[in-house]
C-alpha cells in the first residue's frame, strides 16, 4: 500500500517536472560511473607509460634511427648487430656473473642474519636497523663510498699499509678480472638487509606450536629449520629471488658510481650499454634494441612468477 503510494508520488513528480528529472538522471548516471571517471586519468597515464611508450621504443629498435628518431623500418638489423657488439657481450656476461653471485650472496647472508636475529637476541631492533639502513641510501652514494674504500690509494689497501704491512695488495677495482667482484660486494651490502627483513617477517609468521611440538619431540634446531621453518617460508624465497633478480637486471647507477663500468669495459652492464648507445653515441636504435633485451630478461623472470602467484592463489581459494 505504502509502496504504491510512494510510486504514485514519484510518478506524479516525474510528470510535473520533466526537466528536473532529466538533470537528476544525468546526475545519477554520472554518480554511477564516478569510480571509472576518477580512475580514468591514472589509467590513461599508466596505459601510455606502459604500453604506448614500450611500443614506441620497440618500433624505434626496428627503425634506422641514429641521433634522432626516424621511422624507416629496417627490421631486426639492430638486434643482430647488438649481439655482434663486444661491449654488449661483455655486459650480459657480466650480468650473469654479477646477478647470480649478488642474488645468491644477498639471500644467503639475509637468511643467516634473519635466523640469528630470530634467536631472541638482545637489541633486535638495533641489529635490524644496522642491517637495513643501506636500503635507504641511494646507489649513487653507495657506489661512491665503496669506490673510495676499494681504491688502493685511499681505501683498505692504504689502511693496511699504514698498519705496517707494506706489501699488502687489494686492488680488485683496478683489475679487469676482479673488478666485477667489487660490484658484487657492494651490491650485497645494499640488498642483503632487505632480504633479511623479508625472511625475518617470514620466520615470524611460522606457526610457533609446530616448532614447540618438534622441540618436545627432541628435534635439534638445525633440523627444525631444515624440515619445518624453511619449507614453510618457501613463497618468500621465491619473492625475494624475483625482486633481487629484477634489481640485478636493472643495475645501472650502482656500477656507474662504483667503477663507471671499468676498468675499460670490464664491469659494464646492459643498462649502461643502453645509456651509452642512446645518449653518448647517438645510436638510439641500437639503444632501443638493447632496452628491449632488458625488458625481455625481466619478462622471463617476472611473468612466470606472476602466473605462479595467481595460480597458487586460485588453488588456495578452491581448497579453502
Amino acid at each position, binding site marked *: 500500500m505504502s509502496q504504491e503510494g510512494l510510486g504514485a508520488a514519484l510518478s506524479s513528480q516525474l510528470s510535473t517536472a520533466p526537466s528536473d528529472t532529466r538533470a537528476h538522471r544525468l546526475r545519477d548516471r554520472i554518480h554511477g560511473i564516478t569510480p571509472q571517471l576518477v580512475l580514468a586519468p591514472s589509467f590513461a*597515464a599508466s596505459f601510455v*607509460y606502459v604500453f604506448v611508450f614500450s611500443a614506441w621504443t620497440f618500433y624505434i629498435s626496428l627503425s634506422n634511427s641514429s641521433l634522432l628518431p626516424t621511422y624507416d623500418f629496417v627490421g631486426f638489423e639492430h638486434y643482430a648487430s647488438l649481439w655482434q657488439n663486444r661491449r654488449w657481450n661483455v655486459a650480459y656476461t657480466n650480468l650473469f656473473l654479477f646477478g647470480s653471485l649478488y642474488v645468491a650472496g644477498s639471500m644467503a647472508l639475509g637468511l643467516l642474519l634473519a635466523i640469528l636475529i630470530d634467536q631472541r637476541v638482545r637489541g633486535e631492533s638495533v641489529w635490524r636497523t644496522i642491517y637495513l639502513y643501506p636500503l635507504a641510501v*641511494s646507489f*649513487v652514494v653507495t657506489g661512491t663510498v665503496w669506490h673510495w674504500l676499494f681504491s688502493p690509494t685511499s681505501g683498505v689497501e692504504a689502511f693496511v699499509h699504514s698498519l705496517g704491512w707494506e706489501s699488502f695488495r687489494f686492488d680488485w677495482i683496478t683489475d679487469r678480472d676482479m673488478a666485477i667482484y667489487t660490484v658484487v660486494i657492494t651490491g650485497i651490502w645494499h640488498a642483503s638487509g632487505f632480504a633479511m627483513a*623479508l625472511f625475518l617477517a617470514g620466520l615470524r609468521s611460522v606457526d610457533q606450536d609446530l616448532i614447540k611440538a618438534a622441540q618436545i619431540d627432541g628435534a635439534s634446531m638445525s633440523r627444525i629449520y631444515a624440515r619445518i621453518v624453511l619449507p614453510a617460508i618457501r613463497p618468500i624465497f621465491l619473492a625475494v629471488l624475483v625482486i633481487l633478480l629484477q634489481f640485478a637486471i636493472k643495475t645501472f647507477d650502482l656500477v656507474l*658510481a662504483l667503477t663507471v663500468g671499468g676498468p675499460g669495459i670490464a664491469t659494464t652492464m646492459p643498462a649502461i650499454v643502453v645509456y651509452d648507445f642512446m645518449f653518448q653515441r647517438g645510436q638510439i636504435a641500437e639503444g632501443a634494441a638493447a632496452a628491449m633485451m632488458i625488458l625481455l630478461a625481466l619478462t622471463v623472470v617476472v611473468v612466470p612468477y606472476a602466473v605462479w602467484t595467481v595460480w597458487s592463489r586460485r588453488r588456495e581459494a578452491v581448497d579453502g
Partner: protein
Amino acid sequence: MANVGYDPFATSGGGRRRAARVAIYGILGLFAAYYLLPLVVIVLNSFRELSEISRSGLIGFPQSFSLEYWPMAWSSFCVGGTCKGIAPNFFNSLYMTIPATIISTAFGAINGYILSKWRFRGSEIIFGAMLIGVFLPGQMVLLPWAFVLGKLNLTNTLWGLVLVHTVQGLSFTTLFCRNYYLSIPDDLIKAARIDGAGFWRIFRRIVLPLSPPILIVTVIWQFTGIWNEFLFGVVFSSGQQQPITAALIALTTAGTSVHQYNVEAAAVLIAALPTLLIYFFGGRYFIRGLTQGAIK
C-alpha cells in the same frame, strides 16, 4: 625418570649454549661492522684535514678535526664549472621529490580505493596493466619521455621530472593502497552506501581516517625512491637543474683534479641525509612497507 636430579650433560649443555650465544653475537657483530664501515668512514672523513687523509688513507682514527668542509660542500664547492656547492641541487631534489610524492600518493590512495571497494567490470585488468609499471625498466621509456617532455616544453625543468616520477610512481602507490584497503571490511562500505553516502563521502569519512598507516608507508617509499633516483635525473636535466644524485656523480667523478675527500664526503652525506633521517625515524613503517609491498 622424568625428574633426574643430576644430569651429567647439563653443565656441558649450558656451556655449549653459552658458546652458541657468543657465536651468534660474534657473527652479528662482524656483519654489523661490514654494514657500518662505509657510514663511519664517510662521517669521520667529512671532518678530517686533506693532508691527513692523503697521508694515511680514508680508514683510520682522525687526528685532525675541522667543521669547514660541510659549509664548503653545501655552498661553495665547484660542481661542473659553477661554485655554489651542492645546495642548489639539494633544493632541486627537494622541489622535485615533494610534489611528486604528494601527487602520486594522493592518486594512489584514490585508485586503491576504487580498485578495492568500487570494482567494476574490467577493473582487475586495469589494475594488472598498472602493475606492469612496477617492473618496466626505465630504459624502455627514456626516448618517449624525452619526446613528450619536449612537446610539453618541460625539458630540463623540475616540473618535467615531477611528471615523470609521478606517472612512474602511480603503479607503486596504487598497489600499496589497494592491498591495504582490501583489509577494510566491505560491510562497512555497504552500510555507508545504504545510509546514502556517496563515493567521495565514503572516501573522506571512512577510508581516509583508516589510511594513515599505509599513507605513511607510501610517502616514505615514494620519497626515498624519487630522492635516490638517478637515471631520469641525469637524462632529463642538466647543469643547474640536476637533482642531487646526478650532481654527486659529476662532483665525485670530476676526473683530473685531486680528490677533496673531506668536502666530497660531506657532500655525499648531505645527499644521503634526508632519506637516512626518514629511515631512522620512520624505519618501522619502512620495514612494514617493504614486507607488505613485496609479499602481498
